[in-house]
């Protein structure tokens, strides 16, 4: 019996280290310790052995079993390692470039817009969207722009023919014409007509002017406008907002100043200058960045707000202009050509 065991172990010692695959291992394992395996058969012979021989034989079998188990474990571990090694393949060269394209980039206008919205969000302004096709009422009348105002002229504003029908756009009067909005201020009107003050909104969006395209003009461009309506809003509050916005956007040292100006929908009205010495490609002390003012009482009256109770300010500027200033871009058309060598510079 002992000799048989030794022979079996010797055979295993030779056989197991030579096993190559897990399948071979399983087969070999079955030959030894499977239900009909050689070792199993030997163990089953225990019953036929005389009672007094059993302890000694049992010890022998246990020793053999332990040795066999070591052989099994060793072989399995070896095969497992070989499997992992086989999965790995040759060593990589970490310095080779990834063949995958990327990264993607958001457009610089999107980046500037989102940054402005984020800054304004902190001051309590939420984004409101409005239609780009508008009607004369929302774009002009409600903003205190008289019927004869040159801005309304077909020379400066894109209109649609009388037969045009826009489905998801409300008109104030049936006879007013559809047009492409010339400013995002129309969103202010829609917001005020829909809700009650206090209101604090920012409306970024695309606007249209019937104008020659050149380095500084584009048939469509983007504006971002803020409107705040509350009780006791003052010129000083407006200045505070602008100081905050531009310090947050361009750095703490950025200053703003007002110059008197004229807009139909604000009174008083101002143009806003930025101290610009730290901006790229600017060699002036001050540079114009946008327009603003206190909401004209006539605008409030038009949307049904009592001008004696409510006051507010509005501020608007061109996104392209802001992006051009921030990044030192000298041609507005680059925004619309989408050359990837341009787009990839801002992400």
């Amino acid at each position, binding site marked *: 019996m002992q000799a048989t065991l030794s022979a079996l172990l010797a055979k295993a010692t030779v056989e197991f280290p030579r096993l190559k695959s897990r399948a071979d291992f399983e087969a070999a394992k079955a030959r030894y310790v499977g239900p009909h395996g050689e070792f199993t058969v030997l163990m089953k012979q225990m019953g036929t052995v005389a009672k007094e021989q059993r302890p000694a034989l049992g010890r022998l079998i246990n020793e053999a079993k332990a040795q066999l188990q070591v052989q099994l474990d060793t072989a399995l571990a070896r095969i497992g390692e070989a499997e992992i090694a086989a999965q790995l393949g040759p060593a990589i060269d970490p310095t080779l*470039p990834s*063949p995958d*394209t*990327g*990264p*993607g*980039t*958001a*457009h610089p206008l*999107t980046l500037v817009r*989102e940054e402005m*919205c984020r800054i304004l969000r902190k001051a*309590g302004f*939420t984004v409101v*969207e409005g*239609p*780009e*096709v508008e009607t004369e009422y929302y774009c002009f009348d409600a903003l205190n722009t008289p019927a004869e*105002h040159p801005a309304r002229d*077909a020379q400066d504003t*894109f*209109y*649609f*023919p009388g037969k*045009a*029908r*826009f*489905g*998801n756009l409300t008109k104030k009067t049936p006879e007013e014409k559809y047009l*492409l909005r010339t400013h995002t201020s129309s969103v202010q009107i829609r917001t005020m007509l829909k809700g009650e003050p*206090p*209101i*604090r909104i920012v409306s970024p969006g*695309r606007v*249209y002017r*019937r*104008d*020659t395209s050149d380095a500084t003009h584009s*048939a*469509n461009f983007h504006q971002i406008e803020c409107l705040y309506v509350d009780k*006791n809003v*003052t*010129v*000083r509050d407006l*200045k*505070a907002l602008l*100081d905050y916005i531009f310090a947050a956007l361009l750095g703490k040292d950025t200053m703003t100043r007002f*110059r*008197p*100006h*004229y807009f139909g929908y604000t009174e*008083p009205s101002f*143009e806003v200058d930025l101290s610009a010495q730290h901006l790229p490609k600017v060699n002036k002390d001050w540079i114009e960045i946008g327009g603003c003012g206190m909401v004209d*009482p006539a605008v409030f009256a038009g949307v049904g707000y009592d001008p004696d109770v409510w006051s507010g300010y509005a501020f608007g500027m061109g996104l392209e202009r802001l992006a051009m200033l921030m990044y030192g871009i000298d041609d507005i058309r680059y925004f619309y050509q*989408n*050359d*990837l*060598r341009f*787009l*990839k510079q801002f992400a």
Partner: protein
Amino acid sequence: MKLSRNWLRQYVRLYSTTEELQRAITFLGFEVEGVRQIGLPPLESVVVGEIKTRVKHPDADKLSVCTVDVGPVAGGVRTIVCGAHNCEAGNRVPVALPGAVLPGGFTIKSSKIRGQQSDGMMCSPDELGLSGDHAGLLILDPAAPIGQPINETLPDGDTVFDIEVTPNRPDVLCHIGMARELAAWLKYDVRFPEIKFKGQLTGTPRPDILKGIRVDAPEDCPLYVGIAVSGVKVGPSPAWMQERLAAVGMRPINNLVDAGNFVMLELGQPLHVFDAKKITGRSLIVRRATDGEKLVTLDEKERTLNSRMLVIADEAKPLVIAGIMGGHDAGVDATTTDIVLEAAYFRPQSIRATSRRLGLTSDSAYRFERGVDPQSTLEAARRAIDLILAAAGGTVVGPVLQVGGERRWSRKINVTPDYIRAKLGFDVTDDEMRDALIGLHLPIKGEQETKAGLEWTVAIPSYRRDLGRPIDLVEEVLRIYGTDRVPAAVCTGPALADGDDDPIALFNRRATDYLVGQHFHEVVNYTLRAQPELATWVSAAATSELALANPFVDDQSHLRPTLILGILESLKLNQSRGVPASRLFETGRVFMELNGTVQECVAVGFVLCHNPKERAWLARPEPDFYAVKHHLEILAQMAGIDLAAQELVPVRGAYWGWQEGQSAAAGEMKDGWTVRFGLLNLGMVRAAGVEGKLWAGTLALLPQKLTTPAGHRRYQPFSLFPAALRDLALVVDAARPAAEVRAQLLAAARAATAGGAFTVESIEVFDVYTGVLPLGGTHADGRRGQRGLGENPTGHRGRWNDDDPGLSDCCGGLPVVRSLGEG
């Protein structure tokens, strides 16, 4: 609008430097678009000097070393090195002393030139900002006093400011207007020109010069004034007037025309001078033109008029397009002896409409359409008569003929200083406000105590029609106080409860973030597209629905119904510049048809392609239909649309440039959204000049679709046990869509297992074989293409064996080729 500093000085003291003056104009609310210096600018430390001696520079052939006497105040005799040929002893020349700043910002310093000390510079005309020679020194009058500042020796120069006047301030379209503003800023008085001619309104006209004036269209011409002058002598206007006009860019013509132009630029009232002998019948008629009536204007162009246009005519013909431009044959010329001076108030809208219609503008039209002050019409006419009589002689004959009248003007605004302070948000004293208003010629006519405190009654002059409400005076006070003095403050504001960003903004943000994360580059294209492009890519109907009434250029005439066209253009640009671009996207508005109307939609679109020029050392799979589908499913999900639950329809025929058999669509505008994706038509893409196989996807939705809040999600119970997988191979007609087979299988499986030991959780396609079956059979109906589908009904709570009687039920009558056993 050009303003001359010397001209302004006639009405207001201007001691400020050019920079100070520019700043004043700017902060009064008028943007300075340009500043031009004419002649000698104000110069500090430039004086008259006399060259005493001249010797050749020891170390330079072309230089001389001179001693120059600049007078005792400036330090007596100095040594100056000079390169000019004419620095002969005895010449008196301008000398810039150290510290002087010459035009162009050149600062003079004492220095050594080739080893010789030089304490200043002798100047050429060019170096002083004067036109002309820079080869030699400016030789001054030998009598010019040594040491005298050069500005006192040479005639004054002028500074011309080109300013932008906002449409609310037509009163500043003249020198008096700006003088009033500057006087308020500088706190000086305005000196108005003295007018001698009184202008009698009564008397008998001289019928041989001007019989009378008739106004047939008083609604367009509420006031018309004519004054006849006899015996004028046409000639050049006086030098001072020519100088004024030339400074602001107006060509002097003769003493009559120039007088009219001068008054327009002085007081803002355009005037016209008729040659009396050219007025047929010696009567002026203000009337509407007849349709088709012709007039050759001063610029020698024939204008065709219509019945909405106002003309000044005689009994035979139109002479002038009212307020805009005179006729070529009606103006004054060298033979003119008798004239009629016109001063009128024309309705601004009428002038604007005619000017636009004719495409004809003029200084006169510009002022009339913005509104002149009818209260000063007569005054301007009287001022012009003074100037004409002085420059051209002659005598006024007959009375001032006036038709219509000035509407009475008395506007007052009541305002409390507290109101102004409340609007400003900072302290300005009552006195500062009062001074500002009075300085602007807005006199406080009354001060009264009211419940709201001290109140002022402020009188508004007729030329300030832009002022009508208390808020308007807030701006006036602030302008004079200084808008740059608004104090800083902390930005505050209570949070607003319903403050969330617009769903459109949220969607765009999420879509952008996703696509950027998927290596797409965002592009931005114009909304307006060309008509032929829409006809090719979309439909003939779209070209009529989406057309603008007044496009500016041909290739931007229509609203875009899809973002794909713009993205293609971006792709094309990059390809043409050799820039590899394979993934582009855009978000923005598109315009789509629904029930005969155009709907403005929120949209996202993208294109991805394999770029053969973009080489990589390790190959990656090329994009395909299902890559696009994956992106669109995620984008649709952001809009609350479960694309997997929607019916996807393969695109048939030529539909919006999608390739038949390689693309699909889901959703319709009536549901508020539509999705289209797949391969862009290869031929059309190539025709558009873009290379490659372009896979694209678009999602368009009505804004209100996004605005509708999605219902709250509810938790669904789920199994805590691992699922049992079952692989099935099914034979179906190749033409049957997979989704249909899957749906049939799922329905049958669910029915078969209803109430049973397990439920079918899901069925996934995991392999597709198309072709003749290896088992040799053809499909019963004889179609050649057959498709074996491996379907995987997943269940749990029980084992599922081949001999389970439920299995064939689960297959819903679909022929099972093989049951592949447990996966």
